[in-house]
């Protein structure tokens, strides 16, 4: 368990949070997109985050404890919740009954996600900063 491991764990955390931010901003930007390449309205994207055990670098000793895990994005899935329908017969994307399907994006929800991801990103960055300080102190032992 050393500096490199800690750096990789925090680095992975940064990556996960950045992806969350990207997805939240993408959802917000497409909150009114009624037409997509795959047909139909934009569906909001959700990250699936999972914790993965770090590759065993200490040999069997690691299997006895409960090693620290890093986080990673397992997948990005589209939210299949049907979007809201608005009656608007003049709209170019209106269906035969005159309803337009708008994306299932709730801007408030996305902004909250954005803030949470931003906070976690900062926390990971602070963890790396802390590690840098510790490394400096460790090296200072040898003047």
């Amino acid at each position, binding site marked *: 368990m*050393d500096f490199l491991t800690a750096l990789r764990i925090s680095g992975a955390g940064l990556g996960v949070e950045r992806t969350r931010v990207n997805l939240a901003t993408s959802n917000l930007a497409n909150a009114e997109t009624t037409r997509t390449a795959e047909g139909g309205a934009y569906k909001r994207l959700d990250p699936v985050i999972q914790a993965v055990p770090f590759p065993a670098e200490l040999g069997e000793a690691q299997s006895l404890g409960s090693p620290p895990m890093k986080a990673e994005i397992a997948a990005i899935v589209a939210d299949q919740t049907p979007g809201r329908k608005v009656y608007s017969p003049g709209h170019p994307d209106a269906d035969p009954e005159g309803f337009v399907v708008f994306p299932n994006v709730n801007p408030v929800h996305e902004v909250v996600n954005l803030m949470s991801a931003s906070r976690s990103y900062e926390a990971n960055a602070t963890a790396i900063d802390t590690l840098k300080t510790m490394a400096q102190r460790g090296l200072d032992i040898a003047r």
Partner: protein
Amino acid sequence: MSIERTQMLSPPVGNIGTEHRAPTPTDEGKNVGPGSFAETLGNALQKVDGMQMDADAQAEKVALGGGNLHEMSLALEKADVSMRLAMKVRNKLIDAYQEIMRMNV
């Protein structure tokens, strides 16, 4: 930090009686009686050498990208201190030898 440190600088007086001639630096490695000064010196020098190798191994580990920074620093510092001490002992021994050789017998 203990008294053993200063014991390094002056040979155990009692052991000199078990030998049949005055110890010289070149005696290192030769068997001059059990628990002799030469043996003590030899062991100590082996330990110093061991610490140097320890420091080398740690530095290599870090150079190759893995390794533990504070472990490396500590190993280097210990190697530094032990080598300085060994040098002091060596100088004192040579001084003592020269002193003895100067004696009119």
